[in-house]
């Protein structure tokens, strides 16, 4: 015998919007836009707008499917308890249909209006985020965000592919930059919301391996991230504007990461200021470095 789920009133449209994680989407859209603007050649404004719209819709769809699958985890984490599904404002099936429909629509529109290469990378990024990160890795390994970070690193590649129809070394380095930026960014967050993750049974590195290992890993991942950030300049892929901004902002990132890597949490009442500072700066860092890439390309062109 099956037990019927309680009948919910139709969800408000704002709850569907909340499913798409609009705040995460801003960074995804920005890096995608910068990837497109940094690419050689020009894109028709309408086609360019459509490409960015598809990236936003694809990211929103992946976020909706993530929330559909993780409703049980979200319900026990303070940070996510008020999302539409754990708060009981929406039927799970509606979230699933919304996520699948939006995914298909974004990929089809990208393929028909922009090009096949951009659509293919968009499809891979959605599947990677939903299947590889959310379904497979997140609950199984503390390396979840390392490999899953690739999903968030695709937008500059998609933006570049939308403009040129192919990928090149510079967008690959941008992909590596976001990919290697993800572990220090998320582990800094995980250090100060560790209890939340532990309650939810998510094997984040601080929960499974301890703070010392996490701090060391933040320091270690910052090294290849810094290389990926600065390398486009000596390789001649960007000009001095990007080189200067990347060097300075990456040095600040490295200094903040070094402070986090070398300290130990105080036994009582540690406010975790260095970790919060690294987390906040890491978001600003990506905005600034991608912004510098576009300025460099447009000013020096």
């Amino acid at each position, binding site marked *: 015998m099956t037990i019927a789920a309680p009948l919910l*009133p*139709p969800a*408000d*449209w704002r709850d569907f919007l909340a499913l798409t994680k609009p705040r995460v989407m801003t960074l995804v859209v920005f890096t995608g836009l910068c990837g497109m603007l940094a690419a050689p050649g020009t894109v*028709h*404004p*309408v086609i360019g707008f*459509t490409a960015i*719209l598809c990236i936003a819709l694809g990211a929103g769809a992946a976020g909706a499917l993530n929330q559909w699958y993780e409703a049980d985890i979200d319900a026990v984490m303070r940070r996510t308890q008020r999302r539409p599904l754990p708060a009981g404002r929406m039927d799970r099936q509606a979230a699933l249909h919304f996520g699948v429909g939006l995914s298909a629509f974004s990929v089809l529109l990208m393929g028909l*209006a922009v090009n096949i290469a951009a659509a293919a990378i968009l499809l891979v990024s959605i599947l990677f985020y939903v299947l590889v990160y959310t379904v497979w890795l997140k609950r199984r390994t503390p390396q979840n965000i390392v490999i899953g970070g690739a999903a968030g690193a695709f937008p500059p590649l998609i933006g570049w592919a939308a403009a040129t129809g192919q990928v090149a070394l510079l967008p690959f380095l941008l992909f590596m930059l976001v990919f290697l930026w993800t572990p220090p960014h998320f582990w800094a967050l995980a250090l100060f919301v560790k209890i939340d993750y532990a309650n939810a049974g998510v094997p984040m590195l601080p929960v499974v391996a301890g703070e010392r290992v996490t701090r060391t890993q933040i320091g270690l991942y910052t090294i290849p991230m810094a290389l990926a950030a600065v390398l486009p300049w000596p390789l001649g892929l960007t000009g001095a504007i990007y080189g200067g901004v990347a060097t300075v902002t990456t040095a600040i990132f490295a200094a903040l990461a070094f402070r986090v890597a070398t300290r130990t949490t105080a036994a009582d009442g540690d406010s975790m200021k260095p970790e919060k500072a690294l987390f906040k700066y890491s978001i600003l860092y990506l905005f600034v470095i991608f912004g510098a890439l576009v300025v460099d390309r447009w000013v020096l062109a």
Partner: protein
Amino acid sequence: MTPDELELIRKRQRGRARVMAILLGSLVLLIFAISIAKIQLGMNE
């Protein structure tokens, strides 16, 4: 179902219908703009 619950359902249905109308209208405009852009790009080749 109480009158309050019925009113909530009606309110949400109205809101969703309005948003859907705006989205569909925007989609029509977008497809039109993409068609014009593709024609322009085809003429320039």
